[in-house]
């Protein structure tokens, strides 16, 4: 179920037959959404008790929002690919890294625009870099799906092994092409620094990341819920064989979703590298751990759950990163354990066949 809050009507559910009772709407499940403000308020309470100023909490919350959006952009492709194709792509991290490296390579000749102190030029340069990253990772994704994943549809064990192998090869190829040393990924001039309101500092790049993440999330919701393509994808998640029987080429749908997922990973990788301002070949494997936690929390295959999970994980990471930095990653594991105790399939389990 891509959008968890909304019921998923069968095709043609909107137009009712004469006299037929309206199809009952599935009851909305908003309980998990409450976790988000719950966690924020809880963190605020602990921080006030510890004597941390309120403005720090606001800064951390905004940072969490930005980080959550970036993780969502990366994770949404992975969770959709799993939902539709039943493929768990451990090589997803490779697309993150390749996307970031492609963006870096694009930004080098555009250095003039990046260093200019003008927001439009900066955004243009970043936009171009992101476009190149998405096109590049999308194309690699297509090849990856055709060559690596196609022969192992339906075999989970082999999928995990093969995609892990693909990840290793891709990381090594990055070393060969771009070299193994750490690369700087400077932010454009106009996006450096922070906007200060009162004593609350809002970093400009984080605001941009939040905006991009929201745009992607809304675009995804619109495509999935309001277009024919989205209808087919949602139907494919629930019952792929039926979609095929109705005469749609599900393999094409697979390829399309895989390419879109890879491109999103490339975009997310670019954002992540800009956020960190440095770039190494292992950037993918660093983020992928958080991404896995996110899609497990959200429920494998659920876009809404993925969004919620990304925000939860980012909040947890930022708050504990401030309060007790040594256990930041462990706190996310505890969050996952807690949520799996409550809902063993994740927040929004996907009904499947």
């Amino acid at each position, binding site marked *: 179920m891509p959008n968890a809050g909304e019921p998923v009507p069968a095709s043609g559910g909107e137009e009712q037959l004469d006299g037929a009772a309206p199809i009952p709407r599935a009851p909305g499940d908003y309980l998990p959404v409450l976790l988000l403000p719950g966690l924020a308020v809880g963190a605020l309470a602990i921080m006030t008790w510890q004597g941390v100023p309120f403005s720090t909490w606001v800064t951390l919350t905004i940072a969490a929002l930005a980080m959550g959006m970036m993780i969502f952009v990366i994770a949404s492709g992975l969770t959709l690919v799993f939902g539709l194709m039943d493929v*768990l792509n*451990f090589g997803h991290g490779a697309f993150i890294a390749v996307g970031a490296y492609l963006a870096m390579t694009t930004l080098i000749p555009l250095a003039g625009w990046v260093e200019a102190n003008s927001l439009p030029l900066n955004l243009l340069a970043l936009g171009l870099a992101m476009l190149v990253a998405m096109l590049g990772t999308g194309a690699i994704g297509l090849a990856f799906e055709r060559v690596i994943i196609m022969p192992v549809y339906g075999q989970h064990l082999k999928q995990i092994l093969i995609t892990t192998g693909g990840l290793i090869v891709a990381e090594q*190829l990055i070393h060969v092409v771009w070299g193994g040393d750490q690369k700087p990924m400077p932010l454009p001039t106009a996006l450096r620094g922070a906007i200060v309101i009162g004593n609350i500092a809002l970093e400009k790049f984080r605001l941009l990341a939040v905006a991009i993440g929201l745009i992607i999330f809304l675009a995804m919701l619109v495509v999935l819920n309001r277009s024919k393509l989205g209808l087919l994808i949602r139907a494919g998640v629930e019952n792929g064989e039926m979609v095929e029987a109705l005469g749609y080429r599900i393999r094409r749908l697979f390829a399309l979703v895989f390419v879109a997922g890879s491109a999103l990973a490339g975009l997310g990788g670019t954002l992540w590298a800009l956020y960190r301002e440095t770039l190494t070949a292992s950037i993918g494997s660093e983020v992928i751990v958080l991404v896995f936690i996110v899609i497990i929390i959200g429920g494998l295959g659920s876009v809404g759950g993925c969004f919620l999970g990304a925000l939860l994980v980012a909040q947890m990471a930022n708050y504990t990163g401030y309060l007790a930095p040594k256990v930041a990653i462990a706190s996310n594991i505890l969050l996952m354990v807690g949520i799996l105790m409550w809902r*063993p*399939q994740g927040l929004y389990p996907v009904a499947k066949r």
Partner: protein
Amino acid sequence: MLRAILSDDLPRSRLLSAVLLAIVLLLALAPLLFGGAQAINTAAKICVFIVLVASYDLLLGYTGIVSFAHTMFYGLGGYGVGLALYGWGASWTVVGTGLAIAIITGIALAFLIGLFSLRVRAIFFAMITLAVASAFAIMAAQFSEFTGGEDGRSFRVPELLRPAYTLTELPIIGAITGRTLAYYLVFVAAVLLFLAALRIVNSPFGRVLQAIRENDFRAEALGYRTVGYRIAANCIAAAMAVLAGGLNALWLRYTGPDTTLSFSIMVDILLMVVIGGMGTMYGAVLGASLFVLAQNYLQKLMATAAQAAEAVPVIAQVLHPDRWLLWLGILFVLSVYFFPAGIVGKLRQPTASGS
């Protein structure tokens, strides 16, 4: 007699038997045959990895679940023994205590991970183990005043195993030092653990695991609690990995993230299992031996090749010894596609069709 020792699971191929016999003989006589430190180190590493890979094969090859936390348990063993010896001084009781703590923690962790991931969907397991293992590695580096951080800890082993200790002087072979004794400790423990693993997979319990691998739905329909069996397999594999880590720490007299916890060791283990042959214990012996040998000697070969191809830019880059993981990755993908049964599967093929 031999059948009883090998749990009635014979190699079933003449070539395989010959190769296995050669490996076991070479490992058994390694300190007497090869004088150099590097050769003995390689032999000890092979012994440790045979145990590690065999325990991993119990999960991957026999139960059909992918774990990325095997290095975590391996590291737990290493840190258990290492930190105990570092903190409480060098004695055998300390080794035992450290190992016991590590095994209990390892089994408890394996049980919890299994409970949370295998209860719902086996596919969760791969992701959750990856997350937990990376969290463990980060924590081991973070709590540096306890674990030594990135540098790890060097420690003294019990006197019997120190290089300075001499047991006897023999006429032809020379001195039997603590190093030789340490090697034989590793070797004997590895043989016993391997035979135990062989015993486990050929027991009724092991048959149920294989049934779950082939068709978990049917196994459940026959009345086996698949979750329980999978968790049990996970715990056994974890305990064996902890023991392998302990042996490794005793041999190296050092424990640190790079030798035990790093993801590249996990990749090595995966490669060894797949190259040797998933679902055959003998594959662990072959895979570990070949891989460790290749790691030690192939990298030198690649360095020479890269030097020879210095004029050609891309080729020299690709042949650089640091890029050897690239070739292993390609080999790994190809072998999963084309030789899922690995070397042992290939060797067994003709006899299997004949009988």
